[in-house]
């Protein structure tokens, strides 16, 4: 198993989030989910906001990724993203508050809010809640 692992790097603007060998990474691209294994063909793809699933020695870890893009080479995957968080780092209450706020704004259809931005905020909140709830349920 070990020789078929691939190096995964996740970099955010302020830190190196992750840099280890993994067996498989499942990311959400703009065209749907993509599972990345060793010896994948070279591709650069944009990512949607969503959960990344990292499989390592039979264990799976999840993290939230806020958009970004991935550069996939046969022996290395590099993901650049605006923000990445482990479930432990997510402030669920804040995410829930953000979700509520965004939903209210969307239902009001008020002109003063930028729709695209509000929708993005809602999506971010949903991803965060998903990641952290999966984490607490798994315990």
């Amino acid at each position, binding site marked *: 198993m070990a020789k078929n692992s691939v190096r995964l790097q996740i970099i*955010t603007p302020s830190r190196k989030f992750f840099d280890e060998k993994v067996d498989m990474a499942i990311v959400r691209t703009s065209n749907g989910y993509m599972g990345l294994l060793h010896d994948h063909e070279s591709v650069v793809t944009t990512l949607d906001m969503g959960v990344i699933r990292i499989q390592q020695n039979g264990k799976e870890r999840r993290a939230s990724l806020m958009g970004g893009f991935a550069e996939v080479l046969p022996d290395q995957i590099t993901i650049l993203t605006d923000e990445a968080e482990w479930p432990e780092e997510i402030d669920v209450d804040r995410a829930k508050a953000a979700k509520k706020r965004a939903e209210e704004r969307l239902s009001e259809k008020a002109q003063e809010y930028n729709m695209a931005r509000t929708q993005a905020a809602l999506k971010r909140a949903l991803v965060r809640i998903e990641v952290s709830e999966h984490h607490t349920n798994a315990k």
Partner: protein
Amino acid sequence: MASMRDIKRRIKSVNSTQQITKAMNLVSAAKLQKAKTNLEGTRPFFQKVQQTIASIVKNSEGLNHPYLTVREVKKSAFIVVTSDRGLCGGYNANVSKEALRHMVDKNVQLITVGKKGRDFFKRKKINSEGEFPGVSENPTYAEAARIGQLVLDLYAKTEIDEVYLAYTSFKSTIQQEPTVIKLLPVDADKFQQMSAGEENSVMNYDPSEEEVLNYVIPRYVYTVLFGALAESAASEQGARMTAMDSATENAYDMIDSLTLKFNRARQASITQELSEIVGGAEALK
């Protein structure tokens, strides 16, 4: 000669000023450490973004992207990064003046980060059309993205045709250099040179080169901005540290010379008192 009491009062006042400058020196030394670590953290992301743009530009000849095309310049935007607080030597004046030098003969639209830059240009009768106070000491990527979004919007609406960025690049703790760079349009040639040495690997782009570029170029702008903000923050602390260090040094010198003066005045007053006593005793004989 000033009276003993006056000199004593001055010594006291210089001494308390010195205590303040000393404390500020220590504070900015600590902040500098933090700013430096932040700065280091921004580099890997920036390099990767740069590499990716470079390889796309290289692999796709004749790519036409609005952010890459140079157009006729009618209005130039300047983003000037300064601090909110003073007491950091020539830090703010240097970068503002450097920006001003580049603005000659240009139709300028000004965007300032930090209060000091805004005030500087206000005195020169140039109003800033976008202001971002309160970000310069502890910049975040979100703030950089907000500034970036503003200029990208203006650029897309062709309200501005090029964007310059004036910031202070951090060479070392004692050396900072005001720098002006061109942010938009992105210079594709520069990237072509950068990737000249790399091996040519076949790369697929999903969904397409344009889509990836659409995502990557704004990030490039944000990260350049973020990097500039982080460098400026480190420079500000470095400049303040040096300024406060020399202020403390000067206070020492002043106290020394004032103490000397004080002792002379004390001696003079004792001599006078003595001669008065002797004179009085003499008169009684």
